[in-house]
Each structure stands twice: as structure tokens, then as C-alpha cells.
């Protein structure tokens, strides 16, 4: 099996690579690339994302044919894909960080700034928060409800269809922190930085 982490030259993905290699050991081949052919021939794809929504979308678009290839992989061929942090946010139609930016449009919805209630809540939302699992998700196999996950973000994904939401967290309001729509998975938190429990989520995705 081959799992590809998409390296589209945006942000720091070394922690994602390290964690997937730790979980995969020698059993699964972890590839880190933006090569379109290699992505197409993968069994699973991971779309990380750091920085702003706009900078990530711009970086994806800079690589010729990459969004088409990802679209073909996840939407047409319905192969498993995991988006992490801004990788998840980019599933949306539109993001409002920096300026209005078109997303991949895989899950209808928008990405907007978390309401900090006039400074009552610090942003970015940084640290460990407990997830409330509201729908069974394949990546939550053997994950207890209220497990702690590590977050770093100021924007939240608000999907139109609430049925895609698999978990939320309580920070200012109920914020979407995990989605599952058929073969598409996304986490707002960083499983690669969420200790052993985060590695278990990565393991669940690899073993889908």
C-alpha cells in the first residue's frame, strides 16, 4: 500500500511526515510528493495545510494540474483522502482568511473566523481540547469520546450539511473539528501532534 502526503510547498509538513512514518513503520510506503502520477497511483492521500487559507489554495494552484488530480482522486474515483487543519478547510467552497478565496468545493460550506466574543476567547485557539464525537467515523475507531486533541487555528469550517460533521469542540461555540463525507475525511486538529491518541487516528486512516 502507498500513502501519499501531498507536498505543495506550503507550510511545514515535517511533523505530518514523521508521524505517518512512525505509524507506517515498514508495512506501508509513505510518499511525500506533488508528482501528479504518483498521487494518482496512491491508495490514500493526505492533504496537510498550514498558514492561511489563501496561501494554501494559492500554493495548490501554483502546481499545474494538482487540484484536478486531487479532484479526480477524491471526487471522481472516491479514494480515501484525509485533510488536516487548512487541508480540511480547503474542502469548503469559500474561505474568508485574508481575502475571499475559492476553495476546492468538495464539501459545501465556508471557512470564517472564530467569534472571539470581544476578546473573551483568545485566538488562535491553541492547545488541547476535548473532542465531542457526534457521529461514528472510521478514523475514530477505538478513540474514546472526549479524547484530547491538539489545535492551532483561528478559522473554522462551517459546512452546510451538518450530517458530514463527525466531531465538534467547545470554544466560543461548537466548532467543527472533524468531518467525514463518504471517502473524504478531515480533522481541524493535528493528529500528528496529538500524542499517542493522534497516532491512532493516523493508524485508522492508513488501515481504512
Amino acid at each position, binding site marked *: 500500500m502507498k500513502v501519499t502526503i501531498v507536498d505543495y510547498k506550503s507550510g511545514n509538513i*515535517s511533523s505530518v511526515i514523521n508521524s505517518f512514518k512512525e505509524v507506517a513503520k515498514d508495512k506501508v510506503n509513505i510518499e511525500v510528493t506533488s508528482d501528479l502520477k504518483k498521487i494518482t497511483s496512491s491508495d490514500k492521500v493526505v492533504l496537510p495545510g*498550514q498558514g492561511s487559507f489563501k496561501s494554501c489554495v494559492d500554493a495548490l494552484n501554483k502546481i499545474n494540474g494538482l487540484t484536478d488530480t486531487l479532484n479526480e482522486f477524491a471526487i471522481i474515483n472516491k479514494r480515501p483522502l484525509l485533510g488536516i487543519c487548512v487541508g480540511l478547510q480547503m474542502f469548503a467552497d469559500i474561505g474568508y482568511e485574508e481575502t475571499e478565496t475559492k476553495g476546492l468545493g468538495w464539501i459545501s460550506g465556508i471557512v470564517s473566523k472564530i467569534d472571539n466574543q470581544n476578546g473573551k476567547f483568545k485566538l*488562535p485557539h*491553541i492547545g*488541547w481540547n*476535548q473532542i465531542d464525537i457526534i457521529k461514528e467515523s472510521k478514523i475514530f475507531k477505538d478513540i474514546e469520546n472526549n479524547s484530547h486533541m491538539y489545535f*492551532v487555528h483561528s478559522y473554522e469550517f462551517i459546512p452546510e450539511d451538518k450530517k458530514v460533521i463527525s466531531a465538534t469542540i467547545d470554544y466560543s461555540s461548537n466548532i467543527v473539528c472533524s468531518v467525514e463525507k463518504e471517502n473524504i475525511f478531515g480533522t481541524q486538529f493535528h493528529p500528528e501532534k*496529538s500524542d499517542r491518541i493522534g497516532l491512532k487516528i493516523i493508524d485508522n486512516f492508513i488501515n481504512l
Partner: protein
Amino acid sequence: MLKNRIIPCLDVKNGRVVKGINFVDLKDAGDPVEQAKIYSDGGADEICFLDITASNENRDTIYDVVKKTSKKCFVPLTVGGGVRSVEDINKLLNCGADKVSINTAAVENSKVVIDSSKKFGSQCIVVAIDAKKNGEKWEVFTHGGRNNSGIDALQYAEQMEKNGAGELLVTSMDRDGTQAGYDIDLMSKISSKVNIPVIASGGVGNLDHLVDGIKLGKASAVLAASIFHYGKYSLKEAKDYLDSKGIPVRI
């Protein structure tokens, strides 16, 4: 609910762990990779490396330490000390650091924080403020506490938030190494002034100091070195104690 974080800090010099007392009299005490692993297994919410003499010496050892640590620890890793440029930040992130803390360079050249937060995102840019009380105000010190910039720490904190810092790591120079507790006044004033999280640092001697840093100092996270490093308290003891005082922690 978001939990308050406990962050053990390891001071690193030439690839070895030390803990300075008022930034001098360093004692050598171990391998940073092994130490970090012990902390992460023990429940550290984050790990911080501070390369204390990096401004003056060959820095390549820290890159190697970060690379090795990030393959063994799967909690956030913050690295600071001697970070001068966007390129330094890039190198540390590529080695596996999740956040980089910037101290002297943020004072000397505001573009470093502005440019790096744009390039890598605010989430990985921590501005470290070493502050010392002078009369009614606090002044920002640079170069590992050696130089007084004369800049007002509260105004500076606000400016750094505007420049794109994702967090502030505030160290009281007066308290660092004294084990007399955080400078609560400084922490709460800065925390009230900015909308980004503040990490309190400098002066922890017992577990009540951690409680005070969060409850009175309004810090989102508390950083400590020697109380954990010399085994006075374990991370579990610290977390259980905070929990018993009604502070939300990850247990």
C-alpha cells in the same frame, strides 16, 4: 473546553541540556532528545527547546537535536534561541519544529515577525519577550538578557500581536532562576493587553506558582524548566495539582 498547557523547557547548549540560573552558572544534565521523550511520555502538552548560547556559537547542533526529537515526540515542539531570520525559521521548521520563538531579532527587525508569520502562518511564530522591571514599567531585554532595549514591554507585546505573532512567551528577568514564582503583575498586564495566548515563564519554584500563573497571571500556558528537570515534581504531579485547584488540564 480548551485546557491550560504545561510546557517543560529544556535549555540546550552545544546539543546538551543545561539549566541556567539567572542565565549564568550552567550545569550540564543530559541528552535533549532523551529528556524530551521522557517529558512527552510523561504528559507534557508541548516541549520547548531554548538554544541559549546560539547567538554566539555554531548553531548546527540544535538542528540535529530538533530533527531527532521530532521523530520521537508527537506533541508540539517549540524551538527558540538565536533565531535571526526568516531563513533560520524555515530551517528549524524543516527539521521538525512546530513553532519557532523569536527574541532579539523581533526587537531589532520587525520585518522578521511580519514576514515569517505571513510566510509560515502565525500559528508557528512565538515572540519571546524577556522583560525586566524598571520603576513602574517593564523593559524588553535582548541577547539572552544582556542588553536593555529600553522598549516598554506592554506596548511591545501589543505591537508583536499586530505584526503577526501567534503567541507570546513572556519571561520575567527579575524572577528567572529565583524559584520565587512568576511575575504575576507582568503576566496579567500583558495577557489583558493582547488577544493572543500568553505563555508565562521565569521563576517557578513550586506547583502553586503554576496555579498562580494561570489563575492570577491569566496565562494560557505555563512554562517551567528546573522544577521538572531536576525531578522536584513530575508532570503528572503538576497536572494533578492544577486539576485539584480547578484548572482545566489534559490528564
